[in-house]
């Protein structure tokens, strides 16, 4: 029990199957992870990986077929009402009421959670101020920008001062400026009130930027978990990326690079050839010499520390973009 109170979220062996017979889809296939209190935890995965289903189970919208989950120390299956009072949930789709003003949106949400009129007024003013929405608060939200509307969605999830906030794809569909804004708001959430944030995302850089810890989800399972640094550190080594002047020669380039001492895996995709190497700086001269000897013209060469994309590739066995596109097609079909 003391374990589950220190952990804001504890999920073990969650499974969920939708549909029946031939149409059956196994959305979750044994999801296990835990989130310490007061941290931002990222569930990273391509479309259709099972992130939203996991969040639906943790927020009591759906029930798991098997497995158990505790949120704020409360069993989601046995005491759904208790969980609902302890959490805030910002769904993937916009959840503000476009026919009401900012104030009215927050007031209804406060009333649902049983706040008094005075509390609602004070808390709404505080949230509107904090998210920079105070000037527009009296205007109909239909007229607000997309970034402002999304911030209101997050504010709605915070009205009742939850212990755990769930953000399902908080920045999908936002322009770069609005996304950067949202990132700084989310980063600040754990500073105040010791809030725990679970966010799902299919943006690698978002998880890297925001999450203290993360779990990579693929095909209904957690394939890797840890801090972004740990996950990248496990890959030990760097990536040398060569951009060719023309894609036709990528086979030759690949063969030339593979022959260089210190190079591990090489992958080629159009004009890009990527090589995993032990030490980028030490291996680069050899790579360049080999390409020069093979008379292959280059557009650019970069050495990079491992990214979450590399982490994903290693654990899921396919590149993140390929998985994301495949997932999007499945979802659409």
């Amino acid at each position: 029990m003391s374990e589950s109170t220190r952990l804001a979220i504890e999920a073990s062996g969650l499974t969920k199957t939708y549909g029946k017979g031939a149409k059956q889809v196994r959305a979750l296939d044994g999801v296990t992870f835990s989130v310490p209190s007061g941290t931002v935890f990222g569930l990273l995965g391509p479309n259709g990986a099972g992130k939203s289903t996991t969040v639906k189970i943790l927020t009591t919208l759906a029930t798991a077929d098997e497995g158990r989950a505790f949120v704020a120390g409360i069993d989601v299956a046995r005491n759904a009402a208790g969980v609902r009072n302890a959490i805030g949930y910002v769904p993937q789709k916009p959840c503000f009421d476009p026919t009401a003003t900012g104030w009215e949106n927050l007031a209804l949400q406060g009333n649902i959670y049983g706040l008094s009129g005075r509390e609602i007024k004070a808390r709404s003013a505080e949230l509107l101020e904090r998210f920079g929405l105070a000037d527009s608060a009296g205007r109909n939200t239909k007229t607000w920008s997309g970034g402002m509307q999304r911030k209101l969605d997050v504010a709605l999830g915070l009205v009742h001062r939850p212990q755990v906030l769930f953000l399902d794809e908080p920045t999908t569909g936002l322009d770069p400026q609005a996304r950067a804004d949202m990132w700084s708001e989310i980063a600040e959430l754990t500073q105040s009130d010791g809030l725990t944030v679970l966010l799902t995302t299919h943006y690698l850089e978002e998880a890297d930027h925001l999450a203290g810890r993360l779990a990579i989800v693929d095909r209904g399972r957690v394939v890797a978990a840890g801090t972004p640094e740990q996950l990248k550190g496990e890959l030990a080594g760097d990536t040398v990326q060569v951009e060719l002047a023309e894609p036709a020669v990528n086979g030759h380039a690949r063969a030339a690079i593979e022959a260089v001492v210190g190079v591990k895996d090489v992958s080629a995709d159009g004009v890009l050839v990527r090589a995993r190497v032990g030490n980028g700086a030490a291996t680069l001269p050899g790579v360049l010499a080999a390409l020069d000897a093979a008379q292959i013209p280059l557009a650019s060469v970069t050495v990079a520390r491992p990214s979450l994309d590399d982490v994903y590739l290693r654990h899921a066995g396919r590149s993140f973009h390929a998985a994301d596109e495949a997932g999007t097609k499945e979802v659409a079909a």
Partner: protein
Amino acid sequence: MTTVVTHSSHLAVRNLRILYRQPVYLAFTLVQPMVWLLLFSQLFERVVELPGFGDVSYVAYLAPGVIVMTAMMNAGWAGTSLVDDMDRGVMDRYLASPVRRVAIVNGILAYQAAVTVVQSLIVFGVALAMGARYEAGAVGIVVVLAAAVLLAVIFAALSCAAALLMRTQDALIGIFQFLAFPLLFLSSTLMASALLPDWIGSAAKFNPVDWAVVASREALLSSPDWGLVGGRVALLAALAIVMTGLSARAFRAYQRSV
């Protein structure tokens, strides 16, 4: 129990606010009843000369029917706001909150009841301005409003149940097209009971639209048969309870499928 009432009223206020912000919406819902009242009643003005109508003008005969018809027609669309909420993340936000589940549908039913009262009074006012006269007092009008509200609740609950089970606006439109006019014509809304063909007269006995029309017209007479009025209103109330229960069941089915 008090939480249910509080949540229901907050959600009803949310819905009513839309009406208050965009009164033009209310005006749209009154176009059809005005056509019936201003044009249809004139076109068929002399139909009351047939034996069976009694000593009454057709406007006076038709007005309670138009009130009932308007209540049914508008309540049929009640589920569309649920479909909107499901399409957006609003429903998910509610479901992850401690909001009482029945309050989500109750909020819509309460809103529909309030709209029906306003519409009915407007239709009644126009009918009076057109020369319709009734011997009954305030009690008669209260019965007309009660019958219209109960019918609105019946159809709004049905519409909500359909919305929760089928989740598309198209399905709602389809169902409603299928129901509304047959129910209207299988009743004494437009034609005196005594003049209905036997089979329609028999069918009307099972038609909630006819229950509401019969109760309303009877209550507006100088000395109504209160047994008849009470019986029809009781039937409407019973069906309203059944339909509300059905919408609650549909809600549970929706939640299981999330």
